[in-house]
C-alpha cells in the first residue's frame, strides 16, 4: 500500500533521490534548493540512506566537479542547485554531458542576478539549455519526485548516457506542502536497476575521459551528444509509460495535454504554472471557450514532432516564457516557432514574457492573455511578442 504524506516539495525530492540509492551526493547550499540536500545529508547521518557519501564542497563548481568525478568512477550521483549556483556549475555541466556521464541534478529554478532575486523563474535552466543535459520540467511536487526516478533511468539507459536536469520551480514546488506518495523502495529497486557504467576510472585499467579532439574529430563527438538527445525522445516516453504502469501515475511523456478537444487557442508552458493554467482553462471551458493546454515536460530534447502533432487543430498558440533570451524573446517561443516553421497550416504563435523574478501569475492573467489569442484569431492587431504587464510607469523616462 502506497504511503501518502503531506510534505514539502524539497522533502519529496530528497525522498525520491534516496530510493534511487545514489552513491555520492554533493551540493553547496543555495536558496531555494537548500532543503533538498539538507534532507539528504540528514538521511545519510541517520543511516536511512546507506552506502552514500555526502560531499560538502566550498562552491557549486566543486559540487559539480565532485559528482562528475564520482560518476566517472562508475557510481550513481545526485546533486541539486539553483540560480547563481547553477551558473557557477556551467563549465562542469558541459564536461559531464560531453563525457557522457549520467547523473541527476535537481534544479530549483530561480531568477539570475542581477538584480539579485531569490524568487522563481526559469532563467537558470534556460541559460543552461545547450550544455547537453537532458532537461525535464515538473508541474507539481509529485511529478518532481517521480521525475527524479525517471531521470536516473533515462540518463543511464545505454542508448543515452547523458546527465539529466530535473527542473522544479523554486518555492512554488520546493517550499510548498502537498500530498505526495512516498516512493516505495522495493518498487523503485525493481524499476531502476543498479547503475552499470559503460566506462569507469579504474587504476587497473586507466583511461582518459573527454580527451582532446582535433578538428577532424570534434564535430563527430558533438554530433554523438546531439544524437543521444534525439534518442532520448523515445526513451523519455518509454520510461514515463513504464513508470505509469508500475506506479499508477502518468504525467505525460515528452509533453502532456489538457482539454485539447476542439481547442482553438492553446496555451503552452513548463513547470508549476501549468497548474494555474489548468484552473484558468477549467473556468474558461465552463463558459464554453475552446482553450486547451500543452505542457512541455522535456525541453531538451525539444519535442518537435510531439508538438506538431498536438497543435494540429490549433488556430493560435500562446507561449508563456518565464525567461528571456536577451535581445531576442522567450526561449520556448523561439523554439516552438522553429519547430512549426514550414509546417502547412500551422497556428499563429504569440509569445509572453511572464512571471520573471517571482512575479505572480494569476488565473486572471492567464485569461487575459488567452483573450489576446482569441483577438488574434479574429484578425485583430495583437503584438506577436509581449512583456506581459510590463509596468512602464516605473521605467526611467525615455524607455
Amino acid at each position, binding site marked *: 500500500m502506497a504511503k501518502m504524506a503531506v510534505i514539502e516539495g524539497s522533502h519529496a525530492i530528497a525522498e525520491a533521490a534516496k530510493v534511487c540509492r545514489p552513491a555520492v551526493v554533493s551540493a553547496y547550499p543555495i536558496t531555494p534548493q537548500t532543503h533538498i540536500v539538507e534532507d539528504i545529508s540528514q538521511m545519510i547521518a541517520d543511516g536511512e540512506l546507506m552506502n552514500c557519501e555526502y560531499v560538502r564542497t566550498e562552491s557549486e563548481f566543486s559540487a559539480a566537479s565532485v559528482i562528475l568525478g564520482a560518476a566517472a568512477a562508475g557510481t550513481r550521483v545526485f546533486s541539486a542547485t539553483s540560480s547563481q549556483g547553477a551558473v557557477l556549475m556551467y563549465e562542469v555541466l558541459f564536461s559531464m554531458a560531453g563525457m557522457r556521464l549520467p547523473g541527476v541534478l535537481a534544479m530549483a529554478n530561480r531568477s539570475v542576478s542581477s538584480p539579485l532575486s531569490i524568487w522563481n523563474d526559469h532563467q537558470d535552466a534556460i541559460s543552461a539549455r545547450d550544455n547537453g543535459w537532458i532537461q525535464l520540467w515538473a508541474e507539481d511536487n509529485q511529478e518532481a519526485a517521480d521525475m527524479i526516478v525517471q531521470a536516473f533511468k533515462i540518463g543511464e539507459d545505454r542508448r543515452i548516457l547523458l546527465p539529466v536536469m530535473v527542473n522544479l520551480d523554486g518555492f512554488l514546488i520546493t517550499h510548498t506542502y502537498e500530498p505526495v506518495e512516498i516512493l516505495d523502495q522495493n518498487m523503485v529497486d525493481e524499476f531502476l536497476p543498479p547503475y552499470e557504467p559503460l566506462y569507469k576510472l579504474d587504476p587497473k585499467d*586507466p583511461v582518459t575521459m573527454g*580527451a582532446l579532439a582535433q578538428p577532424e574529430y570534434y564535430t563527430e563527438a558533438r554530433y*554523438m551528444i546531439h544524437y543521444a538527445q534525439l534518442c532520448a525522445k523515445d526513451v523519455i516516453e518509454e520510461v514515463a509509460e513504464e513508470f505509469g504502469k508500475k506506479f499508477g501515475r502518468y504525467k505525460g511523456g515528452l509533453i502532456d495535454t489538457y482539454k485539447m478537444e476542439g481547442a482553438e487557442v492553446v496555451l503552452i508552458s513548463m513547470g508549476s504554472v501549468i497548474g494555474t493554467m489548468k484552473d484558468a482553462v477549467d473556468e474558461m471551458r465552463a463558459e464554453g471557450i475552446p482553450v486547451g493546454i500543452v505542457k512541455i515536460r522535456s525541453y531538451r530534447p525539444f519535442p518537435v514532432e510531439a508538438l506538431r502533432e498536438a497543435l494540429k487543430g490549433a488556430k493560435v498558440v500562446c507561449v508563456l516564457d518565464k525567461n528571456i533570451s536577451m535581445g531576442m524573446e522567450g526561449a520556448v517561443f523561439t523554439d516552438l516557432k522553429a519547430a512549426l516553421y514550414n509546417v502547412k497550416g500551422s497556428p499563429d504563435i504569440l509569445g509572453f514574457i511572464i512571471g520573471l523574478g517571482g512575479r505572480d501569475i494569476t488565473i486572471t492573467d492567464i485569461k487575459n492573455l488567452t483573450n489576446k489569442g482569441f483577438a488574434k484569431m479574429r484578425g485583430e492587431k495583437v503584438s506577436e511578442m509581449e512583456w506581459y504587464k510590463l509596468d512602464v510607469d516605473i521605467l526611467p523616462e525615455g524607455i
Partner: protein
Amino acid sequence: MADNKQRLTIGLVAKPGSTLQYHTGGWRTYRPVIDHEKCIGCKRCADSCMEGAPFECAHDGKKKKFCVNYDYCKGCGVCAYECPVDAIEMVVEEK
C-alpha cells in the same frame, strides 16, 4: 573511414598514450630552439615546461644536452625565460 583515423568512443574515452597521436603542439606561433653549444644540461627547461616537452638528448655523444619535442611544445617561451645561460631562442614557427 580514412585509414589514418580511429573510431570515436562514447564520451571520447581514450587509453593511456593516446596523446601520442594528438600532437598538441600544432598551434604554436614561436618554437624554442636550443643552442647546444651554450646548453649546460641543467634540465631547468624541462622542469619549467608545463608540457614536459624538453627532453634529454645526446649531442656529440658527450655531455648531457636538451632537445624539445615539438609534438607537444606550445611555444610559450617559459623555457627560454628560465634557461640560466640563454641557450634557448624563440623563433617564428615556419611550416
